[in-house]
């Protein structure tokens, strides 16, 4: 063998050995870092951790409220010196990929943020990220929350709960009180009064009556509000399976949807109550329009309160999208939204879980929530929280039905269905159309939804469509349809 062949052999063997050793080291110990491979044992909540030093991770999505969280964590660590809470933050738009990424990497934070009404996607068959807190939190504390725990409902899955509501988030209508007084307009209490107000504003002034925005933003909620009301009036909302969003839709229901879309198109596309191009606007655009006095009302997230109060001298008022007069208590209208909440990670070690539970109890307790409300102008989920600012009180009152009305589907929708939804928004903002066309769109969306629900590749949980069992309250519903037809 020549020298080079010898040398080559030696080098080759050495490299191979190194690779093999590396391979074993890396992939061999991999079993432990694979998440989901170690289902923790039961009874962890009784572990005594008072003498152990534990680090837990806490994820939230509000860098703008970082200081309040730091305060809360500091208070907690003072009372629990053995637990060290490490704060991480993500953002509104990347929380999904953050959690997904954390799950992929085996580093799910021990206490993490998620919307109460959206938590089901983290608790399905394959992915169990959030711990079941029914026994350890819900049953213990539910009466301390608004409406005796109704706010938990949107996060319910098979009668189990996985998320503790923290802060309300919903879309309410802010209006410029100063302008209203100037023009002599009055705050509407019912849906009919609201419609009259919209008409009056267009007649009395050049202002946009109600500024909505975005293809998937508040412009969508104008439709979903009316649909939610129709469902309550007809009795559909009382069907035990209503919340799953998988009830079958018969011809009569599709006709109803068509009437609703036509009504929204009448308001938005023909009478231009929502401004010139609602689809292109954004939250900031809506806030600016309201602050600049370009519109009389704007539908914004309730947490825009801070911006409005900071940047303007005008007085603002608030109300939720009003309910039809025929509904009981029309003053508490539909609020599209729910709650921001926190979950416990199901994948942490027992000790970390116990520590995380302690932190969760403090984080979602009276003291922390009051601190947050005072600093950030948010509406919190507990009964005990008091608000000093009158506008804040109004917001709290108007959000009573947040996360209570409407459906909270758990199945995943396809891109195609999303596209149809967008085209319905476009349709409702245009000024050409007909009842037949609206019906067609509603049917398309329904058919696509049915295909999505039964698609086992997208939804391996094998969902089915459910036949409704409620009896239609035809008389009341007819009254509502008659109102829809006045356009």
């Amino acid at each position, binding site marked *: 063998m020549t020298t080079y062949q010898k040398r080559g052999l030696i080098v080759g063997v050495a490299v191979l050995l190194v690779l093999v050793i590396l391979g074993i080291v890396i992939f061999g110990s991999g079993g432990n870092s694979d998440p989901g491979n170690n289902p923790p044992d039961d009874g962890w909540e009784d572990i005594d951790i008072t003498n152990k030093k534990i680090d837990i991770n806490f994820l939230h999505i509000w860098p703008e409220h970082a200081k309040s969280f730091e305060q809360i964590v500091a208070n907690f660590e003072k009372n629990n010196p053995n637990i060290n809470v490490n704060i991480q933050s993500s953002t509104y738009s990347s929380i999904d990929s953050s959690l997904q990424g954390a799950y992929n990497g085996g580093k799910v934070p021990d206490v993490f943020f998620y919307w109460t009404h959206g938590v089901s996607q983290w608790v399905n068959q394959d992915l169990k990220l959030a711990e079941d807190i029914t026994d350890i939190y819900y049953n213990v504390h539910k009466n301390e929350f608004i409406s005796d725990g109704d706010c938990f409902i949107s996060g319910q899955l098979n009668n189990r709960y996985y998320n503790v509501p923290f802060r309300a988030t919903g879309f309410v209508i802010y209006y410029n009180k100063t302008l209203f007084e100037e023009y002599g307009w009055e705050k509407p209490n019912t849906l009919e009064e609201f419609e009259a107000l919209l008409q009056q504003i267009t007649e009395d002034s050049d202002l946009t009556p109600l500024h909505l925005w975005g293809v998937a933003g508040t412009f969508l909620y104008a439709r979903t509000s009316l649909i939610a009301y129709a469902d309550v009036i007809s009795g559909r909302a009382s069907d035990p399976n209503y919340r799953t969003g998988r009830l079958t839709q018969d011809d009569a229901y599709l006709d109803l949807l068509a009437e609703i879309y036509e009504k929204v198109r009448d308001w938005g596309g023909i009478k231009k109550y929502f401004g010139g191009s609602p689809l292109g606007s954004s939250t900031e655009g809506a806030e600016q329009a309201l602050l600049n006095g370009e519109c009389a009302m704007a539908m914004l997230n309730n947490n825009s309160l801070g911006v409005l109060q900071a940047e303007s001298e005008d007085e603002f008022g608030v109300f939720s999208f009003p309910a039809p007069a025929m509904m009981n208590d029309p003053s508490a209208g539909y609020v599209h939204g729910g709650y921001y909440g926190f979950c416990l990670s199901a994948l942490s070690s027992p000790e970390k879980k116990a520590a995380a539970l302690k932190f969760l109890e403090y984080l979602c307790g009276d003291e922390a929530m009051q601190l947050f409300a005072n600093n950030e102008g948010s509406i919190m989920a507990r009964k005990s929280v008091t608000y000093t600012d009158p506008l804040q009180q109004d917001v709290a009152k108007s959000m009573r039905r947040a996360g209570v009305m409407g459906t909270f589907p758990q199945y995943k929708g396809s891109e195609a269905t999303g596209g149809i939804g967008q085209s319905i928004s476009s349709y409702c903002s245009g000024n050409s159309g007909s009842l037949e066309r609206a019906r067609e769109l509603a049917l398309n969306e329904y058919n696509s939804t049915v295909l999505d629900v039964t698609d086992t*590749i*997208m939804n391996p949980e094998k969902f089915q469509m459910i036949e409704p069992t409620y009896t239609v309250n035809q008389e009341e519903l007819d009254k509502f349809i008659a109102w829809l037809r006045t356009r």
Partner: protein
Amino acid sequence: MVNTKLFQEERNFWGWIFALPAILSLLLFVAYPIVFSVILSFTDQRSAANIQLDFKGLQNYVYLFTNARTLYWPSMLNSFLFSVISTVIQTVLGFFLAYVLYNMGKRSQAIYRVLLYIPVVLPSAVVAIMWKFIYQHDNGLIDVILTQWFGLENLPVWTVTPGWAMAAVILTNTWRFLGTTLILYFVAMNAVPRDCLEGAKIDGANKLHILWYFILPLTFATTKVNLVMSFVGGMKSFDLFFLLTEGLGNTNVVGMIIFNTMYRQQNMSLTVTMSIVLSLILAVFVYFGNFYLKKVDEKND
């Protein structure tokens, strides 16, 4: 004289040593992912967390080809449209500008070369945010110019309206990558031997003749490379769409669909299947593109 066999062996030995880090890199970041992806595409794997290889055969491929609700094929069409229009505009404009630059003085050349290439080196985040800002409704640069100087009203929302959204992304993409085609062509034109052109000029050819009969064919090699690379890059393009339009306004491209499948549908094996099918399609295009362009090249000679 050197013992050539020994020398060759020595070269082989050292060659392997020097190429070792590169080979390692290729193994880790090219070979392993591809092999693993192919394996994954035959399983039903939802997340990247628990790798259980339960093989389901061709399930994912069948789903991809028969189920239209993933919008995979319409998005492929969108990508294709985007790619072709972008490539054509960039190539034509790039060539034209390179020719203009070619005919200018040295100093101007130096200045323009740098200026026109800067958009290429800008980070995609900067480009996207900059243009999002420009396209913004009512407040953005374009809307302000059109309403204040030209008095137009009721402008469509650029990043949301179907049709306009794609045009907006194409404009941004062209703005960004014009520099690459420009530089490539400029360099190629400079490489055309001067004596050849001098001879032609003496023979009485005017500028147009020179352009058509000399410069165009002699830079064809660059055209070939550029067309193929632009097209492939355009098909894979994703970050501009992600940051600028987020798939609204009928700008769903393949990259967005793949990304959504990974993060919203949370279906890893389907994601990988989509990527593999895309890569295969691109490979076919590149192969046939090269083949066809080679023929044109030979004709030119």
